[in-house]
């Protein structure tokens, strides 16, 4: 029998390709959790996930109110997709999500990235998606260590005990 303690996770490379509150936070919580456990952690943002590290967008992340069957109103009432399409509804629901998270002491995106990088975690952006969205390094927040190609990403992931996680 192999013991899980004999093969600890030494490094995680986490990829976030979506820009909703829940997608970004899932990646941030996993990355910060790894840093807290003493696991080397690298977080990569690509495609719409780039919003999380783009200065002009990172404070404005939203959760989608259409096409999300798990979304419910207070009292567990199903959230009609048509209602979610009305102007302002997405913003309202997103503000509610954020206030709930603040109550649980979950930090805002920027502060979360500050905690991660202070603990030695590293944050990267995907070059191809940057080119697609016409973004430059200057558009990204200070917590981003660099812009990588997929080849550089795999080089960085090399080593025994590494896990690549696509959220």
């Amino acid at each position: 029998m192999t013991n899980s303690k004999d093969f600890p996770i030494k490094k995680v490379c986490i990829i976030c390709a979506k820009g909703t509150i829940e997608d970004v936070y899932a990646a941030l919580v996993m990355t910060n959790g790894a840093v807290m456990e003493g696991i080397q952690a690298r977080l990569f943002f690509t495609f719409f996930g780039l919003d999380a590290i783009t200065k002009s967008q990172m404070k404005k992340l939203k959760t989608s109110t259409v096409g999300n069957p798990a979304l419910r109103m207070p009292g567990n009432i199903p959230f009609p997709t048509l209602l979610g399409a009305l102007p302002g509804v997405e913003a309202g629901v997103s503000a509610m999500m954020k206030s709930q998270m603040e109550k649980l002491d979950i930090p805002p995106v920027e502060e979360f990235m500050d905690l991660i990088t202070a603990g030695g975690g590293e944050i990267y952006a995907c070059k191809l998606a940057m080119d697609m969205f016409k973004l430059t390094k200057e558009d990204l927040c200070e917590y981003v260590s660099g812009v990588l190609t997929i080849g550089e990403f795999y080089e960085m992931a090399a080593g025994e005990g590494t896990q690549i996680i696509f959220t």
Partner: protein
Amino acid sequence: MAQKEFAGQLIDVNEEGYFTNPQQWNREVAAAVAKEEGLDLTDNHYAILEFLRNRYNSGEALSIRSINKSGIVDVKEFYSLFPGAPLKKSTKIAGIPKPSSCI
């Protein structure tokens, strides 16, 4: 329940080495636990241990964010004071249960 001797005192611990009775903690015991973790405690370490114990005693959840907001040290210093898994290590030395927080 398992017992372990630290600084001449028998301490009740669980299978992971965390104190099951925070009352048995004192500075000398903390220094002995820290030694086992490879750390020599400084005043900064003790300030954090006191902060963690106070927070635990008042029933507040522990998170890496609460350390940052404590005003004692910032997160970077916290990681350098308790290298590796700082929250796990510091709570063990502070004689309080392992934190159950995900952040």
